[in-house]
């Protein structure tokens, strides 16, 4: 009997202490989450819920593209394949050419100088070397993105590190962003993309998309979070340089400071984050 009383006594103090603690922490607004975080720290989910210490941090990520580093069509294709395979971008080559061209999804592709820079100064007397070159095109991750301005659901938004991101689970497929983007960087899933991803090639670590949503280059946010550079950069042989445009000591800033670079349609004020080296080293200065 005294033993039992003793036990009850201990229990009641504990309960009272617990309630007091819970009350205080709830008032402080940290109650539930503090307890759960405490539990999680030792759990298997800890690695996923806290940022990877290796993750790359920047104020405004961007690219400098120098296509003089690319020697052949294969060099271009390597970058395109690296991106499209890691992001499960559907390969629609099985479709008839005219339908594929109208409905394909692409995050990175190549095109001529004239098409890449339709409003850039150019004329018939310009050196033909420039005109014959192909350039890489992707989302420009603009500082003033028109697509973000027009999106009616905030499905596309600008992150603190300057990346213009797309939430494919919120997108309603209105395609206002496609009308607004002056760079044709956005792709709509006009048909179900999944049959165009070969099961053996599917990257199980990256989601596939459903019909009727818009997608585009995300500057490999999933790789940056693990401390890796974007997939295209890795295999580009230095043709695509990745870095923080806000950091004066970054490699991208050094190239921009020393070589002649241009951006696509700068006159529209969207402030693209992708710079193109024109002319290469031998022509500079």
């Amino acid at each position, binding site marked *: 009997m005294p033993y039992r009383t003793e036990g009850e006594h201990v229990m009641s103090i504990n309960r009272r202490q617990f309630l007091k603690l819970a009350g205080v922490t709830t008032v402080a607004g940290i109650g539930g989450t503090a307890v759960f975080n405490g539990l999680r720290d030792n759990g298997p989910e800890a690695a996923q819920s806290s940022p990877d210490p290796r993750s790359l941090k920047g104020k405004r990520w961007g690219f400098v593209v120098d296509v003089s580093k690319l020697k052949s069509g294969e060099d271009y294709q390597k970058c395109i394949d690296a991106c499209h395979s890691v992001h499960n971008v559907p390969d629609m080559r099985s479709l008839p050419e005219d339908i594929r061209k109208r409905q394909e999804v692409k995050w990175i592709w190549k095109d001529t100088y004239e098409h890449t820079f339709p409003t850039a100064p150019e004329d018939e007397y310009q050196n033909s070397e420039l005109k014959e070159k192909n350039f890489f095109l992707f989302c420009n991750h603009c500082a003033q993105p028109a697509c973000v301005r027009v999106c009616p*659901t905030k499905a596309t938004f600008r992150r603190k590190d300057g990346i213009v991101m797309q939430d494919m689970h919120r*997108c309603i497929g209105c395609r206002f962003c496609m*009308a607004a983007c002056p760079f044709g960087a956005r792709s709509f899933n006009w048909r179900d993309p999944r049959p165009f991803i070969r099961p053996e090639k599917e990257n199980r670590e990256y989601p596939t998309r459903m019909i009727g949503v818009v997608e585009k280059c995300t500057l490999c946010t999933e790789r940056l979070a693990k401390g890796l550079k974007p997939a295209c950069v890795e295999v580009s042989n230095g043709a695509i340089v990745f870095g923080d445009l806000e950091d004066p000591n970054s490699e991208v800033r050094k190239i921009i400071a020393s070589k002649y670079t241009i951006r696509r*349609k700068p006159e529209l004020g969207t402030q693209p984050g992708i710079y193109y080296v024109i002319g290469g080293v031998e022509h500079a200065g």
Partner: protein
Amino acid sequence: MLDKALTGSRRYWTWIFILLAIIGVAFLAYLRQLNEGLGITGLSRDVSWGLYIGQFTFLVGVAASAVMLVIPYYLHDFKKFGKIVILGEFLAVSAVIMCVLFIFVDMGQPIRIMNVILYPTPNSVMFWDTVVLMGYLALNLVIGWTTLGAERNGVKPPAWVKPLIYLSIPWAVSIHTVTAFLYAGIPGRHFWLTAVMAARFLASAFAGGPALLVLLALLVRKYSKFDPGYEPIQALGKIITYAMFANVFLLGLEFFTAFYSNIPGHMQPFKYLYAGINGHAKLVPLMWTSGIFALASLGLLVFPGLRKNEKILAFACVILFISLWIDKGFGLVVGGFVPNMFETVTEYWPTLPEVIITAGVWAIGLLVLTVLYKVAVAVREETA
């Protein structure tokens, strides 16, 4: 009052069932689009909006045009419009319903439509367009239904309707202005980036909407005992004439700015629409039809002697409506996308399923309009 739509002549029911049949076929086509995706339309990554959004834009104008009856009747005490103002309000209701449906069928993920409300985004013009269109639908439904109900009972409309009527006037202007802003605020689409877009939208709306209304009023007279009267229709004819002149004038301004400035980006869409670029000329016959019909309709409307003949007025209204339908319901949207962002040309032409779905939405609009007009006409026949 809705019970009045449930009794009608054999002709009335035949018309209803024709509309229902079109809606049924279109629904099947829509299920296919839902299943296979918008890839069954003629749209592409370069021309990502087409017939659906064009129809939406055009019908916002039709909806806004009700104000052309409301202003003379309620602000200027133009009594002659008393009989037909309800036709304008109910036309607006039907037009807004079609607008909403055209947006819906254009969506890649229609099931997520509530995201526009769940994540309200004031910096998006589309958010505001949703707000103003829903408001306008509610205003016209409430105003039309209440005033008609009062008329049926032989009493004056309740006093609280008056402020709503006054509110509906700037509201009508707002729906078409905001719709113009969907286009006119986009960088890099030269054809749309023009300050007169909203003004032109309003001008074409105030011509096209009343033209449709003239035709509807003539049909109502032909098929019912309710006669909207000669004078109100003539007054509409005058409004149409002024508005159409304003519209053609504004279009002319666009041509001047594009071609006198000689800036390639500004000229290209006009060249594509009216002459074709490198043999890509799918819209050229349509755009010329639109242009010729516009001028021809003005030629008939500008002379009061011709306009006073109701047959000529009706013909002028038909070609004017077709002209504006092509220009705003089709050319306006496509012209913004051609040439594309790389200054190359990808053409657009709607596919059969796309046309069927479009016809289905129009049929739903006509069904709503028929039912509402049936009620209005029945009340008029009763109280006459």
